[in-house]
């Protein structure tokens, strides 16, 4: 703990008579247009796929068409079919999961990201280890930008949370974009319309 004292000691020296104040974080006006359209546009641009649906059954039909019955599908969305997970299971056992379906809290139009916390992941490893990922987001839960996002997150106290924007990717080999670096090779977002 000697270093702790040493570092704090060095930092406690006064550098300046007028320390820089913490600036206001301005509320920037959102760009015009429907956030859900923008979200869709941006997410497609970064390798994600969006599917507009009106009901959960449409989602189930869609998945049923793409996956055979022996695919390992885990769903954390109760209206979407798939197996559930047992608590405290070793995360390594998810290695052969083909698809995981999750429901984030909201999406962000400006960057195509979706915010999800550990309480909605089943296991924290699932969004990353699964071969493919699908998210269900209602069209009324797309925010404009990251400032709104952190407003919404507020001081909620979840052990783990992440923004996910598209499938796992890399461009490390000569800047050619490859989807499916270590995590999911595809990401599908079901935009579920809600009639208000």
């Amino acid at each position, binding site marked *: 703990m000697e270093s702790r004292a040493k570092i704090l000691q*060095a*930092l406690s020296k006064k550098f300046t008579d007028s*320390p820089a104040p913490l600036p206001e974080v301005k509320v920037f006006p959102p760009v015009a247009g429907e956030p859900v359209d923008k979200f869709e546009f941006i997410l497609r641009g970064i390798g994600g796929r969006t599917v507009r649906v009106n009901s959960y059954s449409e989602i189930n039909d869609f998945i049923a068409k793409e996956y055979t019955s022996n695919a390992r599908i885990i769903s954390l969305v109760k209206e979407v079919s798939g197996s559930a997970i047992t608590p405290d299971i070793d995360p390594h056992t998810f290695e052969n999961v083909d698809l995981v379906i999750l429901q984030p809290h909201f999406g962000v139009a400006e*960057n195509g990201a979706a915010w999800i916390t550990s309480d909605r992941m089943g296991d924290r490893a699932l969004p990353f280890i699964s071969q493919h990922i699908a998210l269900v987001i209602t069209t009324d839960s797309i925010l404009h930008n990251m400032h709104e996002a952190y407003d919404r997150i507020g001081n909620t106290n979840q*052990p783990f949370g992440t923004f996910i924007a598209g499938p796992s990717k890399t461009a490390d080999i*000569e*800047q050619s974009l490859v989807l499916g670096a270590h995590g999911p090779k595809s990401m599908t977002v079901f935009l579920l319309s809600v009639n208000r």
Partner: protein
Amino acid sequence: MEQKIYDHAVLADKFNKDASRVDWHDKTLWFIREKRDKAAWQIAEWEELRETASQVKNNVLDNLHDYLLEFEKQAQQNGVTVHWAANAEEHNRIVHAIIKEHGVSDIVKSKSMLTEECHLNEYLQQQGITVVDTDLGERIVQLAGEPPSHIVLPCIHWKKEEIGELFHQHLGTPKGNADPQFLTAAAREHLRQRFMTSRVAITGVNFAVAETGEVVVCTNEGNADLGVQLAEVHIACMGIEKIIPQRKHLGIFLRLLARSATGQPVTTYSSHFRKPRPGQAMHIVLVDNGRSERLQQESFRNALKCIRCGACMNTCPVYRRSGGHSYQYAIAGPIGSILAPGLDMKQHADLPFASTLCGSCSNVCPVKINIHEQLYEWRQVLVKSGHVSPVKKAGISGMAAVLERPGIYKFSGAVGRWFMKYIPVLVNNKLNPWYKQREMPAVPRQSFNEWYRQNRKQNGKQS
């Protein structure tokens, strides 16, 4: 640290022996600069965001003591063990001790410039620990036995055919296959096995929030998350300057980071690690390594605002044409050139001179670090501290002596057009480096001064 043998100019010269490769390197990075521009122009308030980010970071640097304590308290309440390391060696020892405590010999690590700065891999290897870098670019340079050449794009200097060959040798991929899709898939298989078996995962930290004690790690590949979520122990290593005051400030920084770095609207994953997963141990190592000292240096302190986006490298015309390895420091390019001399002036005395002071770096920097002004300042400091060749010193002193005496200036101008006479003296080279690839300017019949005396004085126009 080993004394380096060549300075930047020599390695840059070597790099330039293959002009078409330089062109390729330059274009690849310029393409990223252009993507950055496009992304920035999507945000009407871009310049305001940069200004706000800069102000937040100024506030952090002025109040680092308090923010660190707040962060520590919050992190501990979250069940995280917080360590403090005064320097690189201590950081490495702490990390090693944690690994040893868990009886582990193989670990995975996602990208962390801090661990590069501390030479953690070498240290752990000496202790018999196998470290696998899981970022694809980092894994490539690791297999090749090289350091990364760029902080965001570690293997930007490698061509796909060369990577194909490297994978053929190390991962047994078929010879001659250089398809990025195929090679990435091969790496995925190879690294999955590591993720499945590693019990300790090290990550870097992009932002640490004082208010909540959480650390935020941004990746595109998902390698940090996969590593951490499958391990029993998560060690997050960070420089003490990575602190930001409140969660809401992430809104500013996450808007800037990826757009500046690669032109993406955000990285694929921006993960907020607050508490360890059940049964997992989480450690955060706070590292000083010269930072608290740097904070005392008025002219150089705000280099600590850096969020490691790499934009200054992509835009730097010198970096693009000399390659990351010519800087011989974990962080290359403009920002590296102002950070490195702070750690070891003698070792890195060449770097502040590896710039034309064009100022493009300061303009792209999302936290508005005055990089080119600091390069200028470092030059003054280095010369005053004696880190300059005697030949250059003599040359400049001679030049100064001439320029402060108008009489001698005119005389020496008339006899030799002093400029070209003095310039070659500035470098320790008998051949005139101007002339090697450029013609000398033609010497006119008379200087302007002479012309003026002849043509204007007689006309009575002289003031």
